Structures are given as C-alpha cells and as structure tokens.
C-alpha cells in the first residue's frame, strides 16, 4: 500500500502514524530489555514499577505505542478498504500482509505473556491449547511458540526477534520506508508521553480471582466461552485471514464482499469486547455495574495510576524490601517496621496488600491507599482479604452458613411470634429482611449481633462490639498497640500506631464473644456468673457483687459456671465448625451445635480419632496450639464426629488442655444418678444448670416518634419498636420436653416470650388486635454446677414443672393424697394462666407454646409421673435407700411400697 505522494509536513496518514508508533515500540522495547528479567518476569516488572519510575514510564510507552500501533494499523487497513484504492496487491505481498495482521496480534500477545502475572499465565495456557489444536503441526507450533512450560525464553525470543523482524520486513516491504516522518515521530512521541505518564500499563496483582486476556483478546475470550469445541475458533481465525487476503488481493467483487464481511465482523467483535471488558467478572460470570463485587471483580484491570517521578521512598529502600508472594509490593517499603503479627500473617510473607487491598505497585501514599480496606475481614470483603485462594477460602465460604451470620432462628421465631409465619423452624437470613412489623421489630431491637455487621472503628473487640466478620473473634491488641492507637485517636499527628499492628490470631477469648452473647440468653454473662438486673447505672451499690456492662447495664453476682471457675473459655468447648459453620444451614443454635456434655463426660469407651485422621484445618490449628500432634488420639463429638483437638486420650484416661491457658484437666465421668435408667431422658443441663435468667411480662409497641435505629443499615431513624420489660429473675430453670421422632428429652427452658404486641401501632390496620404470646424457649444457661439439682428442686418445684412460682403442696386427706398449687402471680387476662406459668397445674397446653415446634411443656400424664415421685419425696429423703433404689426401677419400688405410703389421687380428666 503506497503512501500518498502529496503527504508532506503534518499532513499524514494512519499508515505513517503506525510506522512512527512501530519505531517507538522498537526503541522502548530495547530500553525495556535492560530492567526486564526473562527468568523472573513478574518479579522484574513489579520491581521496575516500584524501584524506577523511569523504567515504569518506558514500560508504559512500550505498552501504549504497541496498543496504538495495533489500533492505527487496523484503521489504516480500514481506511484503504474504504477508499477502495490500492487493492489488487500482488498475491505475494497480499499474502504477507494478511499474515502480518496475525503476526501483529502474535507479537502483542507474546508481549502480554511476558508480564508473567496471573492473566498471562492463563493466557499462555489458552494460547498453547489453541495452537496445539491445529491439525498435524499443532504441538510442533505450540512448542515453537511458547517453549517449555514455566519458561519464558522462547516467548521472549519470538517477541523481540521472530515477530518483530517479520513485522519490520513486512512494513518496509509494503510502505517502502524505513523511517517515519519527523512530524509523525514528534507528534506520536508527545501523545505517547502524555498517555504513558497518565496511565500505567496493567499488571495483575495475582490475588484478584478474575483473569482476563488483553483488551483485544477479551472478545475472542467471550467467543471461546460459548464454544464447547474451541478448536472451531481456529477456523474463524483462518477465515478472517483469508478475508483479509481477498480484501487486499482479490478481484473487485470478492474484495468488496470480503471488506463488508470484515466490517460486520469488526462491529460484532467490538460489542463482544465491551461485554468481555465490562460485563464479565470472576469465572467469566455475567456482572452488571452496581452489582455486589462488580468494582472488585471487573475494575481492577483498570487500576492504572499515573507515573510518580518523585516516589515516597528511595530506590535503595525499594530494593531492600522483601519479595512478597512472587512480587515486589510497595506497601512494605514504607511500612517496613511493623510489629505485632503472628508468623502466618507477617507482612514479610503476605505483605499488606493481601489483607488491606489498595494498589501494591503504587509509589506514593495517595495511589497506594486508593480503594484500600482500612479494616479488612468484614464479611462484605472477607473473600477478598482473609479468604483469597492462598489463605482461608473455605472458611470465608462456610462462615456464611453459620447461624452467627444468618440469625435464622432469631428471625424465624420473631416472625412467628408476630404471626407472619406459622413455623419458627424455617430457614431465614438477615440479608433478606423486609419491612413487615416483625422485620422492623428485628431491625430496631434484635439483629445488631450478626457477624456480617461490619467493624468500622479501629480498636479492640470489647463489650460494645457487634459483628466484625473475621475480626469479631480473631483480632487482638497487645498493650503497646492499644496505647499507640489511643494516642493517635487523641492526637492525630501521632503515627507510631502504624508500627504496632494488632495481631490476627487464634486467641479467641471470652471477651470476643461477650459483646453479643451478653444479650438475650446472656450466655456470656451467665457463664461468668453475672445476672442482669433492671437497676439503673447510677443506683449501682458500691459492692463487689455488682458489675456495670456497656456503661448502663447493671449485673448482679450469681454462681459462675464450673467450667469458668476452672479457667476454661468458650472455645475450650465450642470448636470451629460449630462457630464458623460447616457449610450447612441450620435453623437454631441447638441444631448447629455439635459439642455435647457427653463428649467429655462419658462412661464406657471414649470415642476417639487419631492425628492422622484430622482434616487439614484441625491439624494445622492443633499443631499451632500444641506443637507436635503425631501419635495423639483425640476425643470426637458424638453428633458430627468432629475431633476435639484440645483433648487427648492416654492410657484409657481422657484429658482436656485449655486452648489459651494450657491448663490440663482429667475429664470426669458422670455420676451414677445421671446414668440411672430413671433419668435416661434427662439432659445434663436440666439438672446441672444452677440458674437461668428469665424475664416475664414484656410489652412491645411501635412509636412513630421514638428516636430509633436500623440495625441492618446502621442508621438512626425516627420511629421504632419499643420494648417495655417486666422483672428479671435468676432461678433454676423450668423444664420441658424436646421431642425428636420417638426420642424425648427433658431440657431446661426459660420464658422466652411472655409478651403482648400492639401490632396495630405499626400497621394502623384496625383488624390487627393486640397479640399475646406465652412461649418458653429451650435454653443453654451455661451456669453449670458440678452438683446437680436436688430431687425436690425438680419433682416438688412448681417452677421446674412449668406452673410458675407459687406454693405446691402435697396435702393428705386421710388415706388420700392430693397435690395442690396456689400461684404467686395473678392469672393473665389473655389466657387465664399465672403470669410466669408455661402450662397450667395438671393441665395440658397445646398450640403455639414454645419458640420451637418440637419443644412442649409437660403434659398432664408427664406432670403426674413427676409429681408421683415428688409425693414420695415428701416423706423419703433424697439419699434414702428407697429413693436411690427407685432410680433404677421405680415401678418395682412402687409395687413393694409400704402400706403407709399414700399415693396421690388425680382429678378426673375430661374426655
């Protein structure tokens, strides 16, 4: 294609500009060969970007001159086709020019491969695979093009010699020029300098899971994505080259047809390129702007900052910085003396970028910190920080199934109580709350405590903390880190806190759990022996027996859990698959919980597993906590067969070592009374829970003028549900029945919801009446006492039986005994039962009775059975021979009873 003879001065053609651009490709390529190391391409490019802004600038020039060369060459072709002159080239030149188009793409693709980053490594596989697919000579061509797997030398040679020489020859042959015109040379230089200064050539950070080819390839990648047999794509490439050939050298009609087809293809390809660039994310999934994760998944390709010729650090400092995961990372050049990490999270190993994001190749603070995560580990970004492929991807996936993330039970129960669903056991999720009365109630009063609630303020996890993703449990400040942070927060200029990083580690203390678990069932406070009172903070007695939580809540001392007294923490019982989920969704905490008392306190043979059988997560954690684990035998949970890595079995004795303190305990067997047949259906916690908090008589009303809070959006709002609470009590819990199939178990329960809800106040619907609920909830009080409850505290106790407080008496009338109960509380107007009762004395209760479908109060028959033993206990002491005997066979004891024994007479039941 000859150049126009009249072109002089600044009047130029696209071909001329292409020639000038090609000259810059060659010049900058030669210069770039100086810092580029073909043996370590990714290291050398990331290094030059950080250590030498001029080298970075030249790389950008090389990149931009090549991209523009491709664009201008194609426009040059189009220009000639459009003007319909210069066609009818000699077949030889026409053939070489057509081949030249392919060679331009090959030269650019090999340049792309020479980055050696995640994009390039996958592109290399695709290119190798496609080339190998060429019939007969495929493998031969592929090996000639790419060389040995993992080696870049042959690609480099092809890039700088094979394709470059071929292109040079073709260009000179068809343009009959060696040198670009001075005007073009200067003009392109100016444009390239501006582009190269403003926009850096891309380099993948090797952490983001989205991989894409170069921009001119993504349209092709989109086509490949649709092809089950990608080899067919080769025919398309061949067809395109033939069309280019006929457009160049074909007869008029053939040339016209070829040009039109090429034009249509180009329009089509531009559309596919736009799709590939802006609508395809990780795994080539369809994504649209605004979608969650769109920016992270798609826009990282466009993270091209301008060149900073005055970096915030010297080249010498950059040279000294360590290599991190196969690349230089500029973060650690500035943040080079940061202390406080565990070995696994040492920035010399994982850098800062792995957790905090930002731009790892930037050379000034503003660029480096752009889009960074000051507080990583929140569940919205956990998969991009803690959960990247090389770190903890499994955990950040399964954490989303944890009940602490979904709050399924809390939501389902609340909706059921409000009458919005008829089953409290449906699976629900915090992310799908709507605007119903129940959902608004949840948002105002309940759902602040979920792991997805983001941590937004620097500082340690404390009793006011809610949520925080991974950090909710794994963040720990040492004294220095905390004091430096506090100094920074009080005086902005102090930057020493940047040197003392909090640790992310396995020391999950009770304090981490406390913020959320000191509410509702109040497991954390119960465990430590504190019971919440309605007392005001300014009325707190000056005594050791009281404690202030969150500055407003007053707690009174009650007996602590025996395990707490021994120095055990929450994580000594609860293992990671219970807490962080095991990949399955569960409705309620008792469903998700795996560990049971009998896993440690058992009779007979222990259920064990060896160190060899531990999964990688359990084995790694066990080794980190206890060192060498080989040859050890661990106890396993009975429910899901998970290893309890802080236990071991030696010489038929089972032991537990606390995870943080390292205290060792021999695990005790349950007492004889526990395993006696009479109590085979009684759960351990029914007897061993010393007390449980209970609250009765609560009223809920929506106040449109109340200053409220939306706990999902974390925003203040006008209008809120308000809770007017009754009195708090700390007493041995009531008991009830949990029925699973034919299995019945007696469990502790607490008055979960004895309340009224003024539904109309929210809905303004006159048909909505005042809702009254009397629901008890299964409880895990965490107030374990070594000694179980006395016999009488169950068999002769109206609270335990579910009647509520009052006087339960066994009254003898001659030879007849009658149980009599007089309640302490008045009967509620809504259902006629005493305020604190779960069920009526010697009455059945059906319908919605608890916060689960499988938990019920004792039936009349069951009450009679318990009270029958209670009648015996009115005369016989608990430890008497006859009562001890009755534990093994009550019927037999009853059969041989003394004539003096007076059994109760039951009122006639209505049929």
């Amino acid at each position, binding site marked *: 294609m000859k150049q126009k003879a009249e072109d002089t001065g600044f009047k130029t053609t696209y071909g001329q500009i292409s020639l000038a651009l090609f000259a810059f490709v060659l010049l900058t390529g030669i210069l770039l060969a100086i810092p580029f190391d073909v043996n370590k391409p990714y290291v050398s490019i990331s290094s030059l970007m950080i250590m030498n802004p001029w080298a970075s600038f030249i790389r950008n020039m090389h990149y931009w001159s090549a991209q523009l060369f491709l664009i201008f060459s194609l426009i040059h072709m189009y220009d000639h086709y459009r003007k319909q002159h210069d066609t009818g080239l000699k077949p030889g030149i026409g053939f070489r020019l057509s081949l030249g188009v392919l060679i331009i793409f090959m030269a650019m693709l090999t340049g792309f491969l020479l980055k050696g980053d995640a994009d390039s490594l996958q592109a290399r*596989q*695709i290119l190798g*695979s496609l080339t190998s697919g060429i019939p007969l000579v495929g493998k031969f061509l592929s*090996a000639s093009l790419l060389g040995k797997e993992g080696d870049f030398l042959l690609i480099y040679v092809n890039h700088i010699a094979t394709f470059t020489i071929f292109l040079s020859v073709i260009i000179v042959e068809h343009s009959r020029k060696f040198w670009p015109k001075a005007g073009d040379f200067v003009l392109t230089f100016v444009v390239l300098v501006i582009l190269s200064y403003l926009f850096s050539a891309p380099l993948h950070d090797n952490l983001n*899971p989205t991989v894409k080819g170069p921009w001119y390839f993504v349209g092709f990648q989109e086509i*490949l994505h*649709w092809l089950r047999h990608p080899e067919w794509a080769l025919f398309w490439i061949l067809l395109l080259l033939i069309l280019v050939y006929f457009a160049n050298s074909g007869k008029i009609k053939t040339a016209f047809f070829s040009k039109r087809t090429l034009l249509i293809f180009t329009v089509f390809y531009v559309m596919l390129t736009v799709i590939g660039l802006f609508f395809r994310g990780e*795994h080539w999934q369809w994504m649209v702007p605004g979608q969650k994760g769109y920016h992270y998944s798609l826009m990282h390709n466009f993270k091209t900052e301008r060149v900073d010729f005055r970096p915030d650090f010297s080249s010498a400092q950059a040279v000294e910085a360590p290599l991190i995961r196969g690349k230089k990372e500029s973060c650690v050049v500035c943040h080079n003396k940061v202390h406080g990490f565990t070995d696994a999270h040492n920035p010399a190993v994982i850098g800062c970028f792995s957790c905090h994001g930002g731009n790892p190749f930037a050379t000034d603070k503003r660029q480096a910190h752009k889009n960074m995560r000051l507080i990583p580990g929140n569940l919205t970004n956990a998969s991009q920080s803690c959960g990247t492929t090389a770190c903890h991807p499994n955990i950040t996936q399964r954490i989303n199934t944890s009940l602490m993330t979904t709050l399924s039970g809390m939501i389902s129960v609340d909706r059921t109580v409000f009458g919005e669903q008829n089953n409290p056991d449906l699976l629900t999720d915090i992310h799908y709350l709507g605007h119903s009365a129940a959902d608004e109630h949840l948002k105002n009063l309940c759902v602040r405590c979920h792991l997805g609630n983001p941590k937004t303020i620097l500082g340690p996890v404390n009793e006011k903390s809610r949520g925080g993703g991974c950090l909710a449990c794994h963040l720990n400040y040492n004294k220095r880190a905390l004091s430096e942070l506090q100094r920074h927060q009080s005086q902005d200029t102090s930057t020493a806190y940047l040197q003392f990083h909090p640790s992310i580690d396995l020391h999950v203390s009770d304090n981490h759990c406390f913020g959320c678990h000191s509410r509702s069932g109040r497991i954390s406070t119960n465990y430590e022996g504190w019971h919440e009172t309605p007392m005001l903070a300014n009325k707190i007695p000056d005594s050791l027996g009281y404690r202030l939580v969150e500055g407003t809540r007053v707690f009174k001392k009650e007996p602590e859990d025996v395990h707490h007294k021994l120095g055990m923490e929450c994580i000594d019982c609860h293992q990671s698959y219970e807490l962080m989920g095991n990949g399955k969704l569960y409705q309620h905490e008792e469903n998700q919980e795996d560990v049971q008392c009998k896993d440690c306190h058992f009779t007979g043979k222990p259920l064990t597993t060896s160190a060899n059988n531990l*999964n*990688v997560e359990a084995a790694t954690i066990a080794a980190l906590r206890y060192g060498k684990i080989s040859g050890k035998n661990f106890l396993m949970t009975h429910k899901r067969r998970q290893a309890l890595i802080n236990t071991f079995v030696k010489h038929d004795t089972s032991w537990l070592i606390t995870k943080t303190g390292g205290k060792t305990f021999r695990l005790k067997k349950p007492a004889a009374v526990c395993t006696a047949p009479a109590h085979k259906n009684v759960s351990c916690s029914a007897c061993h829970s010393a007390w449980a908090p209970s609250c009765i008589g609560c009223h809920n009303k929506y106040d449109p003028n109340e200053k409220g809070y939306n706990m999902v959006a974390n925003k203040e709002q006008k209008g809120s549900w308000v809770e007017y609470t009754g009195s708090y009590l700390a007493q041995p819990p009531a008991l009830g029945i949990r029925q699973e199939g034919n299995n019945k178990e007696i469990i502790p329960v607490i008055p979960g919801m004895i309340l009224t809800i003024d539904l109309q106040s929210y809905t303004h619907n006159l048909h909505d009446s005042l809702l009254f609920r009397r629901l008890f909830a299964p409880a895990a009080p965490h107030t374990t006492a070594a000694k179980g409850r006395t016999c009488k505290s169950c068999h002769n106790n109206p609270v335990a039986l579910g009647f509520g407080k009052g006087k339960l008496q066994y009254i003898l009338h001659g030879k007849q005994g009658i149980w009599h109960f007089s309640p302490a509380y008045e009967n509620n107007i809504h259902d006629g039962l005493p305020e604190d009762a779960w069920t009526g004395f010697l009455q059945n209760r059906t319908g919605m009775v608890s916060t689960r479908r499988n938990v019920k109060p004792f039936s009349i028959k069951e009450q009679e059975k318990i009270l029958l033993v209670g009648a015996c206990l009115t005369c016989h002491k608990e430890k008497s021979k006859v009562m001890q005997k009755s534990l093994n066979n009550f019927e037999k004891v009853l059969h041989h009873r003394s004539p003096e024994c007076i059994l109760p007479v039951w009122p006639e039941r209505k049929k």
Partner: protein
Amino acid sequence: MTLNKFNRRKFLRLAATGVGLTMVYFWDKMMDSRLIAAAHKSVVLPLTRNLVSFYRDYLVIRQKQHVKVFSSHCTHLGCIINKVENGKLICPCHGSEFDLNGNAVKGPAYKPLKSYPFEMSNNGQKIIIKATES
C-alpha cells in the same frame, strides 16, 4: 537464451524453495528434543490433608482415605484450575465446573479432567505420578 533464462529462474526458485524446506526440516529437528523434554515426566507431590491440593499441572483430591490425581488443566482451553467452591472445581477463565470425580458439571468444558494413575510412597506422605507415553 530465453529458454536458458527461464530455466535458470526456475532452477533458482526451486533451489530457494528447497532451501526454505530444508530450513523447515531443521526447525523440525530442532524441536525434537524440546517436544520430548516437554513430554510428561515422573513427578513427586506431597500428600496433604487438604480436600484439594492445587499444583501447576495437577490436582490432588483427598476425601478421607481416597486419593485421586487429576490434571489441573481445564479440558476446555487448558487454563489452570485453582479454586474449589462448594465441592466444585472452578476454572478461572470461563467458569467451567468439575465435581471432585473430575466430571464436568458446568460448561463450556464437557470432557472430564484427565486422571493420572499414581503410587503412594511407603510412608503414605507422597504421591508419585510416573511418566507416561504421551
């Protein structure tokens, strides 16, 4: 003379083509050793407790005591599979998915991952994938 000229040109063209083909032959010969070197070699990999261990060319899947070795290259275009999510191996390039038996469960790939026979080392801690003729 014309005939001579024609013969000479024809001869030179033929000779030049011959030289070109000879160079291609040399090219072919040069590639011999490289192709052999690139052929599959015997490889030793550590056997970890991970459900899936990712290596550049291999995936080792361990489900309790059952171990399988697959090629890590997606059967669609050879991309290196580096992620397992919800029990599915996912190709980063075009989103093909494979189950833990190597079967393609989501396209564009449709062929199963190539399975490699292997041996366990005596102490059960290593996997030896022997060279195969390819």
